[in-house]
C-alpha cells in the first residue's frame, strides 16, 4: 500500500503555503540595506546636477572640506586620477560615475561627500560650488536626430551624432510582399511614455573595505549580486575572490535594482580610501531622476490584412530614447531587448522590425521594468494595433484575435522573428475571459447606455512573453551566459539548506523554492531553509529580473533535488539490501518494488549518508546543479476591462477587470495571484497616471511622488483572477512558466482599449498613455488623437 506523503500537507507543489519571509517583515525585523549599521560607519551623499546639459567650468570643494565632520569630498577629477570617472555599462557603453567634462542629464552625479552623519554630508554637498555653462538640451529622439543637433556624447570617439544603434530583425522582402497582397492596411503610431519602476525602497550601499584582509564587502540593493561582483572586479580592478556582495532584504526591485549606479562605485572608492565602512542611501528624488527609467519609446507600425480578418504581415519601427548613457541591461545579441517578441501569440506569416536608439539629456536606463527586456512595449503595441486593425476591418476584436491566434496544435511554434513558443491554449483563455466579463451581455448594456449618453467601453488585451533567459546559446549579458544554479545540502537529520544565484525582492523564493524541494524529495517545506544574496555562499546565477527565477533558478532547484534523490536511491538500496533496480520512489519514501511495505524515508537516507553509507560511496548528501534552459517559457494571459468614461470631464472608472493567466504549473497559487494583482496595478498605473516627462530645458517633471503619481488603495480597482487554464511548459522540469510580470506587460493595453472603445463614436484612434482626464476630454471634445509625451510648459 502506498505510503506516499500528501504533497499539499508538506507544503509541496500547488500548496498555497503561507510565506516564510513574512515572519520577520510583519515584526519590523526585516534587514534592508539601510537597516545595517557597521562599526565606524560613515555616510555619503551625492551632489547632483541641476541642469540637463552643461559644460562644467569649475568645481570648488574647499568650503565642503571645511565643514566639521567631513572626511572626504570626491569629484570627477579625483575619480579620473584613479581611472574611475567613467564605468562600463551592461550594454557596451560607458557611463560617467562623477561628471568631469559635462553634465548630460538633470540629476547626474557631480560630486559626493563622506561625513560622520548624513546631515553633515548633505550640508557639505550644498557648500560645493559648481560653475556650469548651459548647453541646449535634447529631450526626445526627433530632437536628437535633427540636423545640427548638439552631440551629447562628445566624450566618445567615433560618435559624430546622437544615434546609438540602428537594428533590424525579420524578413523585409517577405513582409513587403505581404503588404502588396493586402486588402486592408492598418496603421498605428504611439508613444509609450517614460516611466520609473520606483520601488518604495530607494537604492543604497554600504561598502566596507578591510585593509588588513584586502577584502571588500558591499551590502547593496541589487537584484543580481553575482553580476555585480564581476562588475566590481572589472571596474574597481579588485580580485574577484576578495569581493563579497551581499544583497540583504530588498524593498522592491522591478528592474530598478539591476544596473550599477555611480553611488555604489563612489561608496566603494570612499571606503577603500578611508578604510572605513561608507553608507550611501539615495533619497526618492535622486532615485526618480537618476536611476534606471523604463519605456520612453515611439512605435510606428502597420499591419497587412486580408478582408476575412487574417493577418498577412506586420511592419514596425521603434525610436527608443535611452537617455545620456546606453545602460540598459539586456541580452547582448539584441539591441532593443526582446521587442521582437511582438505579435508572438498571433500566427503572423511575415514581419519586419527596425529600431533606432538615440541619446538624450535625460537619465539613462531603459531597464526592464517588470518585464522581460522591452516586452511590455512589444505587447502594448501589439494589442493596440490588434484593436485598431479589428476596428478598421469592422470585425469584433475578440473574433479577430480568435482568427489569428497560434492554434493549440501549432506548438512548438516558430515566430517570424525567430522565437520558438513552447506551449499554450490561447483561444481557451480568451473564452474563459469573455465568459467571466459577460462579453455579449456587456455589449448589449453598452449599446443601451450609449443611447442615454453614457459611455461604456470594454478593452481586451492578450499577451505572451518570453520568460527565463537563456538558453545560453542566444542569451548573454556582456558575454556572460544566462543560466542559473542551485545548491542543496541535506543535513543528517533530514533538514536542509538551499541556495541559489537568484535574489528574491518580494517574490517569495524563501517559501517557493522549499516547495519545489518538498515536491522532489518529500521533505516538508518547513524543513528547508532558503538562502540567497551572499556571493560568498551563493552558487553562480544571473539574478532575479525578467521573470526568470522560476523558469531558470527554479528549474535548477528541481534538478539539484533530483541529483540528491538519485544518490538517496543508492543509499536506500544499501539500507534495504536490494539492488537499485528493485527500488521504487513515492513522495518521501523509497520502497522495494516486490514488497512495498519495506521502505526507507528520505530522512533515513539522509542519516545514512553520514553514518551508514555503502563501501566506496562518497559521504554526505549535497549537490549543485547548473541549469541552462533549452528554451524560454511562454506564459499567456487575457486581460479584460470594462470602464465608464465621463464625457464632461474625461475621467474614467474601471467597472470590472478580469485576468486569465496561464503560467503553467503554479508552485504556490497564493503567491502567483499576489504577483498578478501587483502587475495589474502597475498596468493600471501606466494607463492612468504614472509617467515621467521633461520640459524643453530637460527639467524632469516627476522627480517626487507629488508629480510622479503612483496609485493608492483608493483608486486601484479590484481584480477577478482566473486560473482554470494550465498549459505546462514542456521543457521545464516541473512545467512552470514565468509569471511575475505578465499582468504589468499585458495589462496597460486592456485599459487603453477599453477607454477607446467607450469613445468609439468619436473617430479617435489613439490617446497616448497616461490617459489623464484632460487628454481623454480633449479627445472626446475635439474628436482628435492625443499623442506624444504629455506637453509640459517650460517656466521661462
Amino acid at each position, binding site marked *: 500500500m502506498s505510503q506516499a506523503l500528501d504533497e499539499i500537507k508538506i507544503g509541496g507543489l500547488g500548496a498555497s503555503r503561507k510565506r516564510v519571509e513574512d515572519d520577520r517583515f*510583519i515584526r519590523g525585523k526585516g534587514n534592508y540595506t*539601510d*537597516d545595517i549599521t557597521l562599526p565606524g560607519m560613515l555616510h555619503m551623499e551625492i551632489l547632483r546636477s541641476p541642469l540637463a546639459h552643461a559644460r562644467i567650468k569649475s568645481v570648488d570643494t574647499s568650503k565642503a572640506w571645511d565643514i*566639521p565632520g567631513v572626511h572626504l569630498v570626491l569629484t570627477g577629477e579625483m575619480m579620473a586620477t584613479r581611472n574611475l570617472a567613467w564605468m562600463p555599462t551592461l550594454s557596451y557603453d560607458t557611463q560617467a560615475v562623477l561628471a568631469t567634462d559635462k553634465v548630460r542629464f538633470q540629476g547626474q552625479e557631480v560630486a559626493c561627500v563622506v561625513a560622520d552623519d548624513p546631515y553633515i554630508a548633505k550640508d557639505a554637498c550644498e557648500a560645493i560650488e559648481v560653475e556650469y555653462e548651459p548647453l541646449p538640451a535634447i529631450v526626445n529622439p526627433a530632437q536628437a536626430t535633427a540636423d545640427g543637433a548638439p552631440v551629447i556624447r562628445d566624450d566618445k570617439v567615433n560618435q559624430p551624432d546622437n544615434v546609438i544603434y540602428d537594428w533590424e530583425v525579420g524578413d523585409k522582402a517577405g513582409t513587403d510582399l505581404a503588404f502588396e497582397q493586402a486588402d486592408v492596411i492598418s496603421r498605428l503610431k504611439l508613444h509609450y511614455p517614460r516611466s520609473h519602476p520606483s520601488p518604495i525602497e530607494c537604492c543604497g550601499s554600504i561598502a566596507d573595505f578591510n585593509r588588513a584582509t584586502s577584502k571588500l564587502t558591499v551590502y547593496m540593493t541589487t537584484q543580481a549580486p553575482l553580476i555585480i561582483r564581476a562588475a566590481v572586479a572589472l571596474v574597481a580592478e579588485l580580485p574577484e575572490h576578495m569581493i563579497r556582495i551581499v544583497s540583504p532584504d530588498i524593498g522592491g526591485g522591478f528592474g530598478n535594482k539591476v544596473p550599477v549606479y555611480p553611488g555604489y562605485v563612489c561608496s566603494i572608492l570612499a571606503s577603500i580610501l578611508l578604510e572605513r565602512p561608507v553608507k550611501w542611501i539615495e533619497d526618492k528624488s535622486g532615485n526618480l531622476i537618476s536611476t534606471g527609467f523604463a519605456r520612453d519609446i515611439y512605435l510606428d507600425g502597420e499591419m497587412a490584412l486580408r478582408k476575412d480578418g487574417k493577418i498577412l504581415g506586420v511592419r514596425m519601427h521603434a525610436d527608443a530614447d535611452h537617455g545620456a548613457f546606453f545602460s540598459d541591461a539586456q541580452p547582448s545579441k539584441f539591441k532593443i531587448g526582446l521587442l521582437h517578441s511582438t505579435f508572438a501569440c498571433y500566427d503572423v506569416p511575415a514581419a519586419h522590425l527596425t529600431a533606432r536608439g538615440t541619446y538624450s539629456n535625460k537619465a539613462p536606463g531603459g531597464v526592464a521594468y517588470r518585464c522581460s527586456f522591452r516586452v511590455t512595449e512589444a505587447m502594448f503595441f501589439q494589442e493596440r494595433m490588434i484593436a485598431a486593425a479589428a476596428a478598421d476591418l469592422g470585425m469584433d476584436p475578440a473574433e479577430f484575435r480568435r482568427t489569428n491566434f497560434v492554434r493549440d496544435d501549432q506548438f512548438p511554434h516558430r515566430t517570424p522573428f525567430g522565437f520558438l513558443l513552447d506551449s499554450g491554449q490561447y483561444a481557451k483563455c480568451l473564452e474563459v475571459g469573455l465568459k467571466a466579463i459577460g462579453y455579449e451581455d456587456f455589449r448589449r448594456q453598452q449599446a443601451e447606455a450609449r443611447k442615454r449618453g453614457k459611455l461604456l467601453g470594454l478593452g481586451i488585451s492578450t499577451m505572451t512573453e518570453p520568460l527565463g533567459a537563456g538558453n545560453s546559446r542566444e542569451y548573454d549579458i556582456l558575454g556572460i551566459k544566462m543560466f542559473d544554479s542551485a545548491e542543496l545540502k541535506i543535513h543528517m537529520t533530514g533538514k536542509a539548506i538551499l541556495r541559489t544565484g537568484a535574489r528574491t525582492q518580494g517574490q517569495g523564493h524563501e517559501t517557493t523554492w522549499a516547495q519545489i524541494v518538498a515536491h522532489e524529495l518529500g521533505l516538508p517545506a518547513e524543513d528547508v531553509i532558503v538562502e540567497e544574496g551572499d556571493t560568498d555562499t551563493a552558487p553562480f546565477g544571473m539574478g532575479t529580473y525578467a521573470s526568470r527565477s522560476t523558469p531558470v533558478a527554479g528549474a535548477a532547484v528541481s534538478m539539484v533535488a533530483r541529483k540528491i534523490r538519485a544518490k538517496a536511491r543508492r543509499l536506500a538500496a544499501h539500507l534495504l539490501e536490494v539492488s537499485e533496480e528493485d527500488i521504487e520512489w513515492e513522495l518521501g519514501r523509497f520502497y522495494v518494488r516486490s514488497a512495498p511495505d519495506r521502505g526507507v524515508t528520505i530522512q533515513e537516507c539522509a542519516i545514512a549518508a553520514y553514518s551508514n553509507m555503502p563501501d566506496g560511496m562518497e559521504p554526505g548528501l549535497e549537490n549543485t546543479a547548473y541549469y541552462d534552459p533549452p528554451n524560454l517559457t511562454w506564459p499567456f494571459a487575457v486581460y479584460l476591462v470594462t470602464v465608464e468614461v465621463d464625457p464632461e470631464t474625461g475621467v474614467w472608472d474601471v467597472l470590472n477587470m478580469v485576468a486569465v493567466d496561464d503560467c503553467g504549473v503554479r508552485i504556490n497559487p497564493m503567491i502567483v495571484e499576489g504577483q498578478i494583482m501587483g502587475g495589474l496595478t502597475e498596468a493600471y498605473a501606466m494607463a492612468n497616471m504614472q509617467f515621467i516627462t521633461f520640459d524643453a530645458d530637460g527639467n524632469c517633471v516627476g522627480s517626487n511622488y507629488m508629480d510622479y503619481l503612483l496609485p493608492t488603495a483608493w483608486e486601484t480597482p479590484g481584480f477577478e483572477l482566473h486560473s482554470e487554464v494550465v498549459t505546462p511548459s514542456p521543457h521545464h522540469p516541473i512545467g512552470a512558466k514565468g509569471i511575475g510580470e505578465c499582468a504589468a506587460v499585458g495589462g496597460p493595453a486592456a485599459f487603453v482599449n477599453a477607454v477607446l472603445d467607450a469613445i468609439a463614436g468619436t473617430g479617435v484612434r489613439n490617446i497616448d498613455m497616461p490617459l489623464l482626464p484632460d487628454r481623454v476630454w480633449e479627445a472626446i471634445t475635439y474628436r482628435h488623437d492625443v499623442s506624444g509625451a504629455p506637453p509640459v510648459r517650460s517656466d521661462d
Partner: protein
Amino acid sequence: MTIVYEDRGDDATSEVPVNRIKFTINGQKMIAEVEPRLLLSHLIRRGLGLTGTHMGCDTTNCGACTVLVDGRPVKSCTMLAVQADGHSIETVEGLSGQSELHPLQEGFKQEHGLQCGFCTPGMMMTAKALLAENPSPTEEEVRWALSGNLCRCTGYQNIVKSVLWAADKLRSQG
C-alpha cells in the same frame, strides 16, 4: 550619545545645538538629546535602533515611515524629533508581545498582504489607528484610510483583506 570630531584647531567643531526631549516609545519612557533638525524617523531608526520604521520618500508621500503619535498615524519623516517631546510614540516593534502577534500582523500573513515587506510596517500602523477608531470598517473605509500609504507589490487587494481579517479577529476578541 557621544559625538567625536576631528580637532582642526578651531572652535567651530563644538557648536552643535542640542535639545533635550522626553517621550515614550512603545510604552517605555525615554530621554534623548537631539539636534533640532533631526527627523523623528531618524531618531527612531538611528537613535533608538528601531529599524522596522522604514523611509521611502522623505516627502510624506509613501507612508512607509508611519508611526502612531498619541495614537494618531503620523509620517515620521516629516515630523521633527523635538516635536515628539512629551508625546507617546508607537512603532511596528510595539505591535506584538514576546510571543503573540497582533491580529494585524496575523492578518497580513494569512491574507498575503505583503511581498517585499517594505511598506508593511507603515500599513499596519495606519490600519491600527483606523481600527481603534472604527472597529468594523467597510472595504471602502479601509481603502480610504490606507490611501496615504503606497505599496508597489501587492495591488492593495490583499492588504485590504488583511485589515478586514484583523478587524474580524479584534471584534471576536471583544
